[in-house]
């Protein structure tokens, strides 16, 4: 069966510090991968998606970036965090012939 893991689950980072959130998917190959952000009590905002290794599409211009170094690995990064980067970050995937998107457990980021 397919599973998705993302980490860390929670982190508190100072303004201006770097960020790296990692996500891996198991049990599938060549999945579409996504990073969403969700502010407290709000809806889902698509940040990046990837249809293959090294292929990244950005939906929202900002100081975040994404990379896909391996087929089932998706990384969300920032060189210098802003207070407004605080939120709940969700990795997600779609695999096979379907278009059902499945989410990871999320990573809470607080920028102080």
């Amino acid at each position, binding site marked *: 069966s397919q599973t998705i893991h993302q980490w860390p689950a929670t982190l508190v980072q100072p303004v201006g510090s770097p960020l790296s959130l990692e996500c891996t998917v198991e049990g599938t190959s060549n999945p*579409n991968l996504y990073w969403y952000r*969700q*502010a407290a*009590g*709000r*809806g*889902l*905002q*698509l940040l990046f*998606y990837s*249809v293959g290794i090294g292929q990244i599409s950005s939906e929202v211009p900002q100081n975040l970036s994404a990379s896909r170094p391996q087929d089932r690995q998706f990384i969300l990064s920032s060189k210098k965090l802003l207070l407004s980067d605080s939120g*709940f970050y*969700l990795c*997600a995937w*779609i695999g096979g012939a379907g*278009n*059902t*998107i*499945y*989410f*990871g*457990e*999320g990573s*809470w980021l607080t920028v102080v």
Partner: protein
Amino acid sequence: GESVGLHLPTLSVQEGDNSIINCAYSNSASDYFIWYKQESGKGPQFIIDIRSNMDKRQGQRVTVLLNKTVKHLSLQIAATQPGDSAVYFCAESEGGSYIPTFGRGTSLIVHP
């Protein structure tokens, strides 16, 4: 598209009542629809889906209704329980699109 800048609407019900959560979609070409449940601090979980060639689909205590004429989707939860308290999102996608569009979400609060 995604309504990420608005606070979520709230539905309050008593334990044992039936709940109906509604979702309007805008793309008449969408042919696949999903409902997700998101508990506090967790990633959204798949509940039930429906394709456009159907107007009703039932699961365990949940029913999804699709009205393509008015582009409306609803989730009915029978005998609502406190454990059903969560935010519920609808999502739509079209054909081979790999970017689903999420609704703004509804917060369901079940009072014992």
